[in-house]
């Protein structure tokens, strides 16, 4: 294999990365496409769907989507390392059940909330240890803990539900924030998104996350603490899902065993829709968030358009398959273009 590229060597200007103008590169990114789709959807919704333009629409859209939007943040990092965490929905339910039971037993709300969050973190530790120390595939482990902790949540609460939380908390959580059409949780989403975004894209730790996803062996040889990183991410995922469990319980003022049922699939769907590769190594947090928002917006639009609130599943599924088909075709085209380009430069 001799001389694949015959480009002249070592002129510093040769290494300018930006072949195309900035706006074109930004526009062609998958997350930009999705954000564009969201904007278009909102415009179309506003123009054609009655009552869409009201602040209340945005208010409830965020409220409905909040748990998924929060939980997808750490799971995005997990997927970028090439692992997966399917247990977040069940951790939400588990944390919700413990939080509710603790509260019912007379524990102050604050302390009960801590119990819920810590419980989530412990499930994360369990996932992480099974994956990194024991060396089991994360898919199998988290399918197992998905069933296990949902089962424990359902088992603990049975068919009962705990609803006697102080009424002012849900009222506060669902009220508009400073008169804007967004609930309080929006702040939490933004803060956490910035925190995870910085962690993934602007820290050495995040560089390691990508390196693991691209090649775990190369990462290990380059001094990335592979197993420690993976473990930390599972614990973070557990903690965040635990916190979401507490929040979810308070927002609806209801702790039942089925809280968060099926959310893991919505989380993964949003992330994949947002252009994160399920093989690991590629993707952005912004894309994953945009994927989550797109699903939320689609769902709200269809609901208001009177197509029914049950359409979420068909929309989610169709969006997911559509996105992988498009990504697959785009990948095929860019590979062909690239191989042509390299042929051209070699001929020159």
């Amino acid at each position, binding site marked *: 294999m001799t001389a694949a590229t015959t480009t002249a060597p070592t002129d510093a200007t040769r290494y300018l*990365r930006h072949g195309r103008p900035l706006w074109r590169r930004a526009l062609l990114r998958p997350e930009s496409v999705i954000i564009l789709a969201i904007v278009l959807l909102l415009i179309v919704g506003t123009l054609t769907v009655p009552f869409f333009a009201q602040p209340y629409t945005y208010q409830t859209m965020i409220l409905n989507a909040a748990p998924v939007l929060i939980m997808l943040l750490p799971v995005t990092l997990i997927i970028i390392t090439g692992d997966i965490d399917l247990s977040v929905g069940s951790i939400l339910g588990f944390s919700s059940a413990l939080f509710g039971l603790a509260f019912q037993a007379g524990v102050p709300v604050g302390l009960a909330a801590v119990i819920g969050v810590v419980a989530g973190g412990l499930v994360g530790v369990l996932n992480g240890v099974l994956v990194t120390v024991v060396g089991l595939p994360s898919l199998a482990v988290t399918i197992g803990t998905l069933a296990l902790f949902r089962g424990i949540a359902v088992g603990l609460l049975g068919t009962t539900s705990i609803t006697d939380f102080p009424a002012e908390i849900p009222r506060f959580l669902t009220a508009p924030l400073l008169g804007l059409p967004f609930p309080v949780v929006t702040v939490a989403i933004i803060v956490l998104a910035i925190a995870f975004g910085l962690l993934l894209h602007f820290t050495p730790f995040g560089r390691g996350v990508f390196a693991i996803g691209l090649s775990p062996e190369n990462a290990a040889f380059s001094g990335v603490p592979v197993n420690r990183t993976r473990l930390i991410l599972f614990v973070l995922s557990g903690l965040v899902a635990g916190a979401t469990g507490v929040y979810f319980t308070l927002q609806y003022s209801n702790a039942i065993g089925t809280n968060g049922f099926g959310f893991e699939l919505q989380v993964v769907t949003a992330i994949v829709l947002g252009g994160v590769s399920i093989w690991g190594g590629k993707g952005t947090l912004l894309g994953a968030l945009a994927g989550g928002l797109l699903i939320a917006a689609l769902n709200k639009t269809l609901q208001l358009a009177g197509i029914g609130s049950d359409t979420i599943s068909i929309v989610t599924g169709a969006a997911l398959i559509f996105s992988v088909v498009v990504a697959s075709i785009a990948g095929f085209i860019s590979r062909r273009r690239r191989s042509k380009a390299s*042929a051209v430069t070699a001929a020159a």
Partner: protein
Amino acid sequence: MTDTTPLMQLTGVSKSFGAVKALISADLTLEAGSIHALVGENGAGKSTLVKIIGGLYHRDDGEFTLEGQSVDFHNTKEAKEAGIAVIYQEPTLFPDLTVAENIFVGRQPYTRFGGLDRAKMRRETLELTRRLGVPIDPEREARGLSIADQQVVEIAKSISVGAKVIIMDEPTAALSGVEVDRLMGIARQLRDEGRGLIFISHRFDEVFSLCDTITVMRDGTYIATNKAAEVTEDAIIRQMVGRSVENLFPKQETTIGEPVLEVKNLTSAGVFDDVSFTVRSGEIVAFAGLVGAGRSEIARAVFGVDRYDSGSVSIGGKAVPPKNPMAAMRLGMGFVPEDRRKQGLAMAAGVQQNITLAIRENLAKFGFITSSLEEPAARTWASRLQVKTHALDTEASMLSGGNQQKVVLGKWLATQPKFLIVDEPTRGIDVGTKSEVHRLLSELAGTGVALLMISSELPEVLGMADRVLVVREGRITAELSREQATPENVMYAATHATEEGEAAA
């Protein structure tokens, strides 16, 4: 078959991958009842030629005849049906299937009730492996078989389909001495049965003792075919390299300073045993020995990628904690691993991402890192090492082997190591880049860096090293100074038991 029709003949075969010409014009004539060596440097096109014969690639141009008939394979199945079997260095068995099923996969015999005739498969497997002198339990899973036994399974498979042409692609690279003897015995037996064998190896002793004909390739082109009895090793090497060996290794004289790396009594049960050595500043120490002797394993343990049971490693007098590459790096250690594609690079990542991975913590400001912090570092090292690439975000997989290796070297030089391990630094690299890499390593030693080089290419070891440590079966069996290190001494220590090795030193 008459004497005039060769068993298999290829003439003027070429193959390109996009812009890369992997094969320019390859010729090969294989007679029945012969063992034919195919030699050439890494990148000479041997593997590509083998893959064309095996049906994995389709040739762009040239003649390919089998027993006088022109053939044209579009997949491995067609090649197999025509009687061609390829045995790779690391056989590709199905670990969950039994040995018998691995041999019969895709053509399992049925009983008259329509089920698999397992008894027949068992019987024939045992008979086949007995015939090869290596009976293997037909009912056991292929998982856990040694590489040598896996090769035997592959050979049994090729015999059972009646292969006329058997190609062995570096089969001995990962075998122990006894296993090599056994394999050579099998090869002779297959030859005596009238089959034609192609044997690819870098070990000239094997080539000369086993093969009757030697074809040399260089840079994708046919060079010459020799009768083994009528040619010397030196002549073959000249044909392979196309110039005299000395020019390849521009070794600079350096002043050797204080010890940098000290390894004491390093032991990992079943892998290596009681290994002690030092590497001084400005010194290039080479680990010589056969593949599988444990050289890479020792290096990996020193760097902390693998664990070890006992012993100690220190750099500049500071202890290096075990199983912690990050700590080793902080103390000034670097490691250019042998498998560039898997261990050295993230192939789907860009040049910049690869170069800055190991120094990501040093580049960070207040704990944060951005592309604009990484770019200067990446550009510096990419241009200093003359990496030929379009842009810093070009994927590593798009680069040639030599440029990929430069990226790996750049990544480690960027860490400004005091001690650098380079494991097979020039494997699969074209000759030009090879000497660039050698010059680079030499310069590096000149700046006072301590280097440990692992290489299976004897000329490279002899040309580059100030001191040669010969590793055999997990132990250092000889320490040779530059003056003492002759090919004979090194090979002797690498292949003979410890006492004799020390005697030779």
